[in-house]
């Protein structure tokens, strides 16, 4: 009888494992500058404002001091943090244990490439006009500044890529279609 119970629990365990596996959620998406200030945040699970702030402080403490050769994944409580640095800009994504860290790591790069693609073609103030702003190490503050001044547009781009914590589009040109159309309509 004990054995039956054991098997029962084992089956239950399996389903739990699988369900968490299928969850593979992105919990939040953060852009942080080198000084550790949040430049953009998007949460895919409801969280109170003050809890967010506390969480962000902890996350920044955990990620920013890490060196380049260290693993890009950090454990923070039950969340895995995947982070990537672009000159003055840090991108940190919180995921659950079942998500594929490396795929998320590359998703960050995809996102940055989309930003790059968008902002390098949009008319920017002279100072900010570079062909590849995000990989340009010389202008340390450029990328965070662009995000600051275009907070709404960066959000719109992000909304095209991630919805409800799932990756919904990775095709760069398709991601930009709605935003470019909006820009065009607004101009005319």
């Amino acid at each position: 009888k004990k054995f039956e119970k054991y098997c029962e629990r084992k089956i239950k365990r399996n389903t739990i494992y699988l369900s968490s596996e299928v969850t593979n959620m992105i919990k939040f998406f953060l852009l942080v500058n080198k000084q550790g200030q949040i430049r953009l945040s998007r949460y895919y699970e409801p969280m109170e404002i003050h809890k967010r702030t506390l969480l962000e402080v902890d996350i920044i403490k955990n990620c920013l001091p890490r060196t380049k050769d260290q693993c890009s994944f950090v454990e923070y409580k039950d969340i895995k943090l995947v982070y990537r640095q672009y000159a003055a800009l840090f991108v940190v994504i919180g995921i659950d244990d079942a998500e594929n860290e490396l795929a998320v790591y590359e998703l960050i790069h995809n996102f940055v490439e989309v930003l790059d693609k968008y902002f390098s073609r949009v008319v920017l103030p002279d100072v900010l006009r570079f062909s590849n702003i995000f990989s340009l190490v010389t202008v340390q503050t450029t990328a965070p500044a662009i995000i600051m001044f275009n907070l709404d547009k960066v959000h719109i781009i992000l909304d095209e890529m991630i919805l409800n914590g799932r990756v919904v589009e990775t095709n760069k040109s398709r991601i930009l279609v709605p935003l470019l159309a909006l820009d065009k309509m607004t101009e005319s």
Partner: protein
Amino acid sequence: MQQIQDQAPPSMVKDSRMVEADEEKLIKKELAALKEQVSTPTTSLKQMRECLVRLIYCEMLGYEASFGYIHAIKLAQQGSLMEKRVGYLAVSLFLNESHELLLLLVNTVLKDLQSTNLLEVCMALTVASQLFPPDMIPAVLPLVEEKLQHSKEIIRRKAVLALYKFYLLAPNQVQHIHDKFRKALCDRDPGVMAASLHIYLLLIKENPGGYKDLTSSFVTILKQVVGGKLAVDFNYHSVPAPWLQIQLLRILRLLGKDDQITSELMYDILDESLRRAEINHNITYAILFECIQTVYTIHPKVDLLEKAAKCNGKFILSPKNNLKYLGLKALSYVIQQDMNLVLQHQMTIIECLDHPDPIIKRETLELLYRITNAQNVAVIVQKMLDYLRQSKDEYITISLVGKVAELAEKYAPTNEWFIQTMNAVFSVGGDMIPADIPNNFLRLLAEGFDDEVEDKQLRLYAVNSYLALLEKNNIHYPQRFLQVMSWVLGEYSYLKTEAKAEDIIQSLHYLLGKCSASLETKAWIFSAITKLFRLTLNVKVLPEVLQNYGNSMDSCLRQCSFELKQLVEDKEIMNTVLPLDESCNDIVVDASLSFLDGFVADALGHGAAPYKPHHQRQEERLSQEKVLNFEPYGLSFATSPQISSVTGRQSPTGLSFNSEISCNSTEAGLKDSDSLKLDGVKKVWGKEGYLRKKKESKEETVASPNSESDVTADFTSTAEKTAGLSAEEQEKKLLASSLFVGLGSNNLVSLMGKNQSTTQKFRRKSKIVEGQNSYERTMSTQKAIAPPLAQIPNLMDNVLESCNPFQESKAMLLRKTASDSAEVPTEEPAQESDEAWNSSNNLKTIRAVPSASKESISGLFADGNFDIVQPGNCNSALVAHEPNSSLSPGLPVEFAEHSHSKFELVCANENIALFSCKVWKEDCLLIVLFFTNRSSIEVTNATVNFALTDELQACESTDFPFPLVESLATVKCQLCLQMMKPCARVLLTGHVTYHLETSQQTQEEFALALFLTDFIRPLKLTTEEFGHLWLSLSNDVKQNLSFTSDSPEALTVALRTLQQELKLHIVDIIGAEGIVACQLLPSTSCLLHCRFHAGILSVWLRSGCCVLPDCLLYECQKVIQKL
């Protein structure tokens, strides 16, 4: 305004390096400005957009901007294009699914869905797939469905995503459109198809059987993607749609699990995926990782498994940490199916154990945890403990400590090792350690393993080890460790026959004295000491213990020490209460507490109030606070005291003698003492998440049936190979052989989907699993840890009884001493009452130290601040003020120091005069009657006779004969009176008879009015005593007295006045509440609880006598009305 219209950087972000304090100031200022601007009607939509972006920014920095939420919705409604989009964006950032403002969005979404502008439709669909009120889904569902047929790819794709969100929110609302999902899956556009995969992943997870027919479709799609059939812009670094591939691999994994036929459909494409992953890029590794998991989840194919294992090798051997990490993660997943893979990579794993990056170490430990068996447990646990000693992260410590404890319980090779490992767990885990670890450990010790001898050895070893630890001085042990030690020492010290119990008591006592132990721990230690006293007849230490804790400020310790005293005195009780080695036996507790019935009945018979449950008391308190008083005001003093006392009482609950009520009361008490002692223990059931996790992982460790020979063979070959390597290498190899011992190579059986789980050596585990759900079991163990609770009330009663008289007599003594040196207060009533405070405080301090010497007591009262309050309605007239001073009597010196009334002429004729004076002594009202012979001749055979009514009682005879009173002389007599039945006013009548010379006897009648206040004396109590007394008194009366003053001092003023006028004693004033006590001579106490609120003084009186509260209330009313 102008500034906002410009694209100039917002002022608040000018300097990104500003300090936090500045930031806060700046943002607050900005928020204030924004608040003003958004509510200005002239603000244009374009400006509003800018404002909202700023508000988003503020919320992002952690400053709530809720005033802008409605404007976000408005902008989404009224704006066009970019403004509208920002409005929607702000809504999706500001609000959550349950926010009420979300309903306002529904109409806007509806409108935009019907718009001819594709961008607007797009936005509406985007926001609907971010958040939407679930109960409004039916309103938009038809419109969204319609969009599935739209000509534009982007609209169809977004419609699918919106449906996916609706499915998450309310699955049954989209049940009917499953067909349309299929259509979306087969959409000509890959984007729409990819979007539909999100829904399918969910659906298949819930019901894998229902979608097997789609397997070939998914396989075909994957084949096309891998084969590069998609447009080039889907590529990411020349890998075709990698995230789509990952998604498909996940779906295939779910479909192929435990299903050979379905699995066979996907072998080809998996093979191709593994082959294609040759480009050395992160994203291909991400795909490979999914591939490996899929290959090891579906029905196995040897060829594929080999390839996947080879791939896994690429990860683990990679110099890149990210890949190494992922490789370890994959390996932990894979070993559930195939232990051999670990053996292939053992050297790499050893290296990872010393990896500089903690996260890789962690993942390695996770892997090791899953391959632990009885042979390698010691090494693995050692590695985990090493890691724990370095880690400071609380979350990691908690989870790892749990794992170590679990492995130790499961696989401990020897008793010594087990105890030492657990010691390390308790030391390293410190105070972060979850309560279930010590609890499980103690239960394990207590329950044993069906082998008496071994159990005893284990316990003895634990005792020895703790004694050794306690001998080391100046080492700080965590609280939970101390608790474990003291419990074990208390329970099992008897096994160590060569040690003297008193020595152990001594060292525990020393531990108790250390300030580092928390109160909870002290309670554990104390109960261990109590248990140890059953082993010894030597009670030398006892007085010291009792002296130290008998009057400890902590009531728990105080109670424990009284219990200890009682138990030591009576060995028989000791043995029933604390039997040896019985901690596992259930204690039968009479939950109804029927044994107290007699006690309760007695108490009720003596006029105690029946018990009121907590909620009822609370209700009463609430009603006192809030409910309007509908009863008419007016004087509550009624002519018939009996009746008024009944009607005046608030809710006289029916007297009930059944044990239910008494049970409630005692239960509440029990709970308190329970929680004091078992605080930590209870938490086992509180942290479900943790427990569950632990259970899971326990079972994940799949047992491997391994033959010894296999292992040895394996390692002899390893050893052979290692010859000739460097010393360091040798060391690593050695470690490897100890780590991976017992992981046989004959595990291919398990690959066929049958896990040999039952052969696991659940040596220690079985007990735990068995007991896991048995709440009673734990409780019984816990009860044994603490002294049995059922005994407490009885014991405590005895103790209280025995110590009360002691305190009382001391107190009496105090009063006497004090009154001896008391002075008659003559003026400054305010100061006087202050002095009353002091005196009561002094009294309190002294009572707390009953052993204080008499000298110190009299010393405290040397300044004579003992008060007898003088009634205000009479002046302390001195004899000299009396009009006919020549004839007026002088008050005897012995009374002069007491407060007294002025002289009153009670009766007079030409020959004689009778004067009376009331002296308010503490224990009685003294009527001093002066008989003056006014005549010129002597009076003989004079007799004063008092006729006492029922209300009054005299101490001695009421007849006072005066055989001879000379001319113009005054004689006096005195009568001590006490009031037996409370009443507001009573007439003391009497007559005086005398003979003038030989003439006939003359008789004169007289009457004296006595008032209730003449018999009221302050009752000096501490707040605590007041509380106790209050509960024991049953007759209560409540009344609201209007009191026209709302100064904060009003209550104090009122109480001071009462104190002066009625001779009450103010016990305490806390905020708007004050408690006052008095007694009616001889000894009927009455307590007042006054609460002042909004010009109303609510007075609540309680007394043991039913009439007294009414009478006293009447007096109070009179006094308060005069104010």
